């Protein structure tokens, strides 16, 4: 059951809005990832300013007022003492109330401050409080490390929002993030997204969870794996229950015959045989539920660290599935399997006490 529910947690997490912060973008409801729209960012200087203002105007003119941000970045050579490394420097441009979620220290507050991921710090053998230099747009910039953060991008550094990349050619962008005014509900957000798709003539406008699903590309696969695990769990549980119960019946034949001889009815014997499996499966479900979240968090962070630089990630979960559906499946299969197998005790007669050695 633990495997089943862990897969469920992973699948949910990898399309959850809760992990948006690991992509280096602020909280937002919609995301434009259209390559034609974003192509200008890589071709022109400061194109992001125009893109942000154009998008905000488009939204306002069509009854969907909101604020836009763009996260852009470039790989630049950085140095600390005698260590050098190529680090991905990123900055979020635009109007947002979000602050960078930090694992340690604080977010950069000035243009000469940066936060870095653990692997970036390790590459440069630096720690919070150290100064590093980097060549950005042909000029050498000095930064003080103010904190450590998590990201799916390994060896990344976060710059203050006002930092100017100048003519530095960009390597990546997370698209345009839109935070609608007035905290609209899910239905309004979805309607807005459909409208934006029509306005810009592209399908690549996503809600946060769809964007994450699109970027990670794992959620659907994990869902399929989860369903397969459910089937395997059902089959394996049924097999184990049936084989164990048959083994118990064979081992306890004399006791069953004795109980029947003494006057215990078939129903009581079948109930007793079924109940022992049910009790074990209930305990297993309880233990599994208790350890699920800690183990899921550990595993998810471990997987996240293989992809990027992740810590402090909390898995998303569906309480109905974890605490009701999966246990119900497991306990249900156990009840049915043990009950049907326990019916075999009906073949043992009270008079079989005569043939027992």
């Amino acid at each position, binding site marked *: 059951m633990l495997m089943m529910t862990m897969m469920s947690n992973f699948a949910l997490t990898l399309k959850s809005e809760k992990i948006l912060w690991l992509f280096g973008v602020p909280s937002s409801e919609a995301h434009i990832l259209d390559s034609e729209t974003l192509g200008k960012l890589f071709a022109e200087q400061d194109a992001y300013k125009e893109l942000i203002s154009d998008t905000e105007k488009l939204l306002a003119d069509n009854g969907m007022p909101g604020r836009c941000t763009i996260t852009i970045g470039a790989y630049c050579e950085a140095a600390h003492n005698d260590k050098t490394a190529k680090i991905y420097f990123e900055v979020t441009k635009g109007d947002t109330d979000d602050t960078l979620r930090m694992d340690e220290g604080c977010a950069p507050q000035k243009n000469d401050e940066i936060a870095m991921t653990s692997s970036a710090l390790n590459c440069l053998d630096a720690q919070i409080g150290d100064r590093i230099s980097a060549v950005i747009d042909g000029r050498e910039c000095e930064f003080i490390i103010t904190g450590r953060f998590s990201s799916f991008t390994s060896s990344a550094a976060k710059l203050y929002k006002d930092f100017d990349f100048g003519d530095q050619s960009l390597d990546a962008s997370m698209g345009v993030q839109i935070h609608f005014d007035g905290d609209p509900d899910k239905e309004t957000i979805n309607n807005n997204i459909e409208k934006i798709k029509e306005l810009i003539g592209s399908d690549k406008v996503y809600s946060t969870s769809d964007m994450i699903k699109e970027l990670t590309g794992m959620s659907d696969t994990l869902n399929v794996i989860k369903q397969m695990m459910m089937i395997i769990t059902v089959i394996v549980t049924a097999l184990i229950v049936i084989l164990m119960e048959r083994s118990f019946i064979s081992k306890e034949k004399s006791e069953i015959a*004795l109980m*029947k001889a*003494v*006057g215990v*009815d078939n129903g009581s014997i079948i109930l007793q045989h079924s109940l022992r499996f049910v009790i074990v499966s209930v305990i297993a479900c309880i233990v599994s539920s208790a350890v699920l979240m800690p183990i899921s968090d550990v595993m998810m962070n471990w997987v996240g660290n293989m992809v990027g630089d992740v810590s402090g990630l909390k898995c998303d979960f569906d309480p109905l599935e974890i605490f009701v559906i999966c246990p119900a499946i497991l306990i249900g299969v156990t009840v049915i399997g043990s009950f049907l197998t326990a019916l075999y005790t009906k073949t043992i007669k*009270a008079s079989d006490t*005569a043939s027992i050695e």
Partner: protein
Amino acid sequence: MNTILQTKGLCKTYIVNKHQNNVLKNIDLTINEGEFVAIMGPSGSGKSTLLYCVSGMDRVTAGEVIFNGKEIAKLGDKELAKLRLDEMGFIFQQMYMMKNLSVLDNIILPAVKSKKNNESRKATEERGRSLMRRLGIDDVGGNDINEVSGGQLQRACICRSMINNPKMIFADEPTGALNRSSSDEVMNELLSLNRDGTTIMCVTHDPKVAAKCSRVLYIVDGVIVGEKETGHFDGGDKELRDRERELNNWLMEQGW
């Protein structure tokens, strides 16, 4: 005296490898309340089969078995189980007990399972201990069944058979697996129960055991070929020797 058990034309047939084996043939039998009846016969004569059929542990092929006014053949499995639990007691040769339960728990098992028993668990345990005191095994209640002697275990089986105050006790070779002194102890306990009014039907190979019973039935090839009234045994070695001698002579006449 009231009749507690009666059979009319009782037949039991087994089919083994398509061969029909008539184990019991038209058995007519009556046992009255308070009797202590021994069933004797050579091996394979159908003694245990007769015991199982009249106690409802096995279904008869034909004929009637009336226990305490109830026609056993007409009862369903559940009703039969209830009858055995509430109105019958059983003692087996091999002293079968539940391995995972203590001696006391084994003794009170029928009482716990019986729906006619409304008392608390504590009261049931006290009744069990009372029976154990009467049979002289009150010090082994908490023991595992592997920690007691054969004689003690068989006396525990007697306690178990008595816990629901049955109308009749069915004993299949109750002393078969015991040494002489333990056999005597067990038989004395059964005699004591019989004197208190419990009807007992006992299958045995041992003439010493049968000599203590009030009636002996001799069965050969599924038919009761002889019956001997020996009267109640009051105790005493001389009386026992006389009864044994008389019984042996009678058994030899029957072809023992």
